[in-house]
């Protein structure tokens, strides 16, 4: 595996490895464009981005990326159906106003989607809540309850249930702990992050 992809945040590295060269990709909440730049440079992916923060967009454009400043909660509506091979929503689902509707949009715009999110059922989170009786502040969830952008915490089991309810197919799933991919056994206890590849 090449060096650029290895330097990516672990969930992004998982996603990047799955995207075939030459694909069309929309990175929703693309931040400073780290994933898009890697995809463009390493596998000639036609990557577009949507990002709410003006300074991040400025960074992206100065890196030569095509990124639109906008709010994923409203601006995805302006993308045509099937415009992309993959829609990517990394570490953002839990910040959206309606994660269920967001999934619909991802799979309307993209033939497939990658979704990564922090797992609220990780044992450290459970311990913080059960033993200390406090909302957990961990490295993955580094906010206090009053200033967190994560307004819809979810667990791996919750996500599975929503996908079932919607009839969304899981192509593949990866569970991450300490930046490493771990096995599926007990993932809802052991995984800090999950990555799902889903399709209609």
């Amino acid at each position, binding site marked *: 595996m090449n060096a650029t992809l290895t330097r990516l945040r672990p969930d992004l590295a998982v996603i990047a490895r799955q995207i075939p060269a030459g694909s069309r990709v929309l990175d929703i909440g693309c931040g400073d464009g780290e994933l898009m730049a890697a995809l463009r440079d390493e596998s000639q992916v*036609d990557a*577009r981005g949507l990002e709410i923060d*003006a*300074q991040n*967009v*400025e960074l*992206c*454009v*100065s*890196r*030569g*990326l*095509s*990124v*639109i*400043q*906008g709010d994923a909660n409203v*601006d995805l509506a*302006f*993308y*045509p159906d099937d*415009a992309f091979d993959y829609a990517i929503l990394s570490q953002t689902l839990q910040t959206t106003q309606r994660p269920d509707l967001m999934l619909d949009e991802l799979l309307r715009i993209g033939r497939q989607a990658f979704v990564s999110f922090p797992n609220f059922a990780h044992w450290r989170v459970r311990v913080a809540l059960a033993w200390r009786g406090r909302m957990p502040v961990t490295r993955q969830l580094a906010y206090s309850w009053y200033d967190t952008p994560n307004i819809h915490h979810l667990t791996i089991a919750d996500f599975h249930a929503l996908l079932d309810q919607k009839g969304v197919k899981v192509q593949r799933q990866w569970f991450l702990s300490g930046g490493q991919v771990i096995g599926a056994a007990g993932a809802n206890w052991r995984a800090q992050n999950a990555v799902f590849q889903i399709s209609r």
Partner: protein
Amino acid sequence: MASAASNAASEVLELADPLPLDGGQRLDGVRIAYNTYGTLNDARDNAILVAHATTGDQYVASQHPITGKPGWWDRMVGPGKPIDTDRFFVICPNVIGGCMGSTGPSSMASDGKPYAMRFPVITIRDMVRAHVILLESLGIETLHAVIGGSMGGMQALSLAANWPHIPRRVLAIASTATMAAQNIAFQEVGRQAIMADPAWAGGNYYDNDTGPDSGLAVARMAAHITYLSEESLTSKFGRRLQDRPDGKPGAKSFGFDADFQIESYLRHQGLSFTTRFDANSYLYITRAMSYFDLDEEHGGKLADAFARTQARFCVISFDTDWLYPTEQSRKLVHVLNAANAPVSFVELSAPFGHDSFLLDVPALDRVVTGFLNQ
């Protein structure tokens, strides 16, 4: 200092054939005045067309021959600047309808008298049609980029929609694909101010001692307010009083002198504008802008027009620009998205209102530099 001003004298292209216009007429003997900066490379693929705004001209990066001021985008265009004339061949034409050397209402018609109001009403696309002929004459088939702010952005978008094979990058700053009612309204105020001036004389003032300077100055004053933000007006002028002509500190005159600094400033802006701009040109150019509706021009299917281009787009708005507000840029971006065009969009924060695109906004420099290097 190595300066782009080295070739300050405008060049002029005289068109051999009549220029067909959207209004159905053909304009004979068209001249296009333009300035160039930098060098066209052997592959002829490093050219950037910079389109000027309503009252701009071809002196984008060289001293203005009338005002003596630096080029209107001197901070953006030049060696080592975001539009780097060490790398790019920059072309800036005066629009037709203008008054700095390109054919406009003050030009001589075939009868040896100025056109005045006999000049045909032109559109943004007519201006761009002239630019395209200029590019052909320079042997340029594709542009590295077309760039413009405000009315310049309209020209950039018109080029992309109507001549999709020419630009490889399209940068529209503080602009719109459709002139909104509020903008049409302000420009109508300006035109009415000019035409209400008795010295306008139905447009036939060229042989008179004075033209409609008062009307043109009022038009400029009204327009100038729309280019600024309330924030910048307040911080620059507030309610401060203007020193009296005899040097005494400002005081309310209980009359109608320019008591406030903002009044004095606007009067100065209005008057100095009349020394460099033709009133009839102002009528024709603002008319062209009010007719600008790219969507209507393409039968309501603007996305189809943009789908034919391979160009990358970059759309920039400013948070304090209430004349061309972010929402208009966003609409354009949605159309480009629907066309699957590679488009970037950012709303930059700057205090100067619509004029932000001309002023010191470092984030704008970074975005322009990055976009041109894509």
